């Protein structure tokens, strides 16, 4: 079971009139993992997720969720998945606890609603109706509604959009708890740090296609090189330094007395650089390693800023 994908998308195409939102997208989601679908606004993230949830019928391609067709097998699939929409989904006149209790009643073995309310800090909402809750409270209620039915798989569409940093951390913690308890999570985000902090797998989407998929570490390693910087005596013999370093590594002195080494920056490379400095009587000051982030990977792959 562990190795079977919970979501398998092949060649998905979805058009709205003349606009193609998703254009031949392939994606596999591992059971028990947190998968982040990352991309700028308009990349096709929400359309992809809503096709998995059964809201959209593919124009081409196949989508299987828990082995089921989200449209044809909707009745069988819906009790098994949890859905957090990007916004709304609650009666404007309903209180937070009332709506959550209601969602619980639609399931056979729901979570303890009181404990969930406390866990997500919704207790302070009291008798306030949905339309008067803060944006953050509305987001947390929506998240609670997605998990209250004890699903096998949850889809969270931009779960931390509009949250303050503390609420964002709290949502991240909940996602980690879900994974620890064996729930598969698919979330969309345009926050790089969110994908890096949470995801076991990241699928980078641009213009309706997956352009890269893998663990954040793998994507960062494969997608871009890292940089080591230090300052020292001006005019060091970089040719001699390069001989000590692996092939493909580059070294430069962009401004007098500052040095930049680009390549596979790992502990071995760092040790080689510092011992070369020791041999040449150089004291390397301010050594810093710049690891490439998903943000760099994205920029490199698409030529676009993520939050443009």
């Amino acid at each position: 079971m562990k190795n079977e994908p919970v979501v398998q998308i092949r060649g998905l195409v979805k058009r709205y009139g003349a606009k193609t939102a998703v254009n031949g997208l392939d994606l596999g989601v591992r059971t028990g993992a947190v998968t982040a679908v990352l991309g700028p606004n308009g990349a096709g993230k929400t359309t992809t997720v809503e096709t998995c949830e059964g809201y959209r019928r593919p124009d081409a391609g196949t989508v299987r969720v828990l082995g089921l067709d989200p449209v044809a097998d909707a009745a069988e699939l819906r009790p098994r998945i949890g859905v957090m929409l990007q916004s709304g989904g609650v009666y404007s006149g309903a209180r937070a606890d009332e709506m959550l209790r209601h969602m619980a009643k639609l399931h056979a073995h729901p979570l303890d609603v009181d404990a969930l309310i406390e866990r997500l800090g919704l207790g302070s909402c009291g008798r306030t109706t949905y339309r008067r809750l803060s944006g953050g409270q509305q987001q947390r209620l929506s998240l609670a509604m997605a998990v209250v039915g004890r699903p096998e798989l949850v889809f969270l569409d931009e779960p931390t959009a509009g949250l303050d940093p503390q609420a964002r951390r709290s949502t991240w913690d909940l996602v980690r708890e879900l994974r620890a308890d064996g729930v598969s999570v698919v979330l969309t985000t345009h926050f790089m740090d969110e994908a890096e902090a949470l995801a076991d797998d990241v699928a980078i989407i641009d213009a309706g296609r997956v352009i890269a998929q893998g663990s954040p570490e793998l994507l960062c390693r494969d997608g871009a090189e890292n940089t080591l910087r230090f300052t020292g005596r001006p005019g060091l013999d970089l040719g001699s330094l390069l001989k000590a370093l692996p092939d493909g590594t580059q070294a430069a002195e962009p401004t007098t007395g500052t040095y930049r080494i680009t390549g596979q920056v790992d502990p071995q490379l760092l040790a080689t650089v510092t011992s070369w400095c020791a041999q040449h009587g150089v004291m390397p000051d301010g050594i810093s390693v710049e690891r490439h982030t998903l943000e760099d990977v994205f920029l490199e792959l698409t030529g676009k800023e993520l939050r443009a």
Partner: protein
Amino acid sequence: MSAGTYAPRPGAAPLPRMIGAQTALETRMLLRNGEQLLLTVIIPTLLLVLFSAVDIVDTGAGRSVDFLAPGILALAVMSTAFTGQAIATGFERRYGVLKRLGASPLPRWGLMTAKTLAVLVTEVLQVVLLTVIAFALGWSPHGNPLAVLLLLVLGTAAFSGLGLLMSGTLKAEATLAAANLVFLLLLVGGGVIVPLDKFPDAAQSVLGLLPIAALSDGLRDVLQHGASMPWGDLGILAVWAVLGLSAAAKFFRWE
């Protein structure tokens, strides 16, 4: 919450429990909303009391409450099944409530069943309240209770179809405006408080085909005049119900 809290244990609740919970929630939402109460309770009550006590409109021979009570019952049905349901459903659609519930274990037909039950529960409360007030004003109804029940049910079906058609195709704001406007126009021109024979003959024959006119006329035939079964009015309501509900089923959009 401790480890294992979220361990998957999915499953839908039994259908009767889901529909029951949905009905209870929908009814609470209807009764909690101030604008809805204005339409469904306050306006019908005020009209009944005011026009029974003060002879503003010539309601023909006999006590005015005997003319007014059946019309006000028809208005109550329209206010809940058409106006109230259209506005509420329009905003639920706009705010993604219908969409979100569409991803829950509750099937769509279950949601529509619950909405209908919530309308019926509200109508029962309205009928009880208005009947008590009418009796206090000296109302003496006649006729066949079965005919009254049949009229109320067919009227509810006709107005629900039209209300859902409107809320499922127009924008929420447009539904809000149109539903209120239609409510007002039908209140005046549908034989609720103003007898249809006050209108010119040509207008009468058209107005008489409106669902509100058929419902108030049918209720009046039975409750005021003791008719056994007002087949003509029942027929008009049945046609509206079939047209409205099938159009709603065809054109209703959930998002």
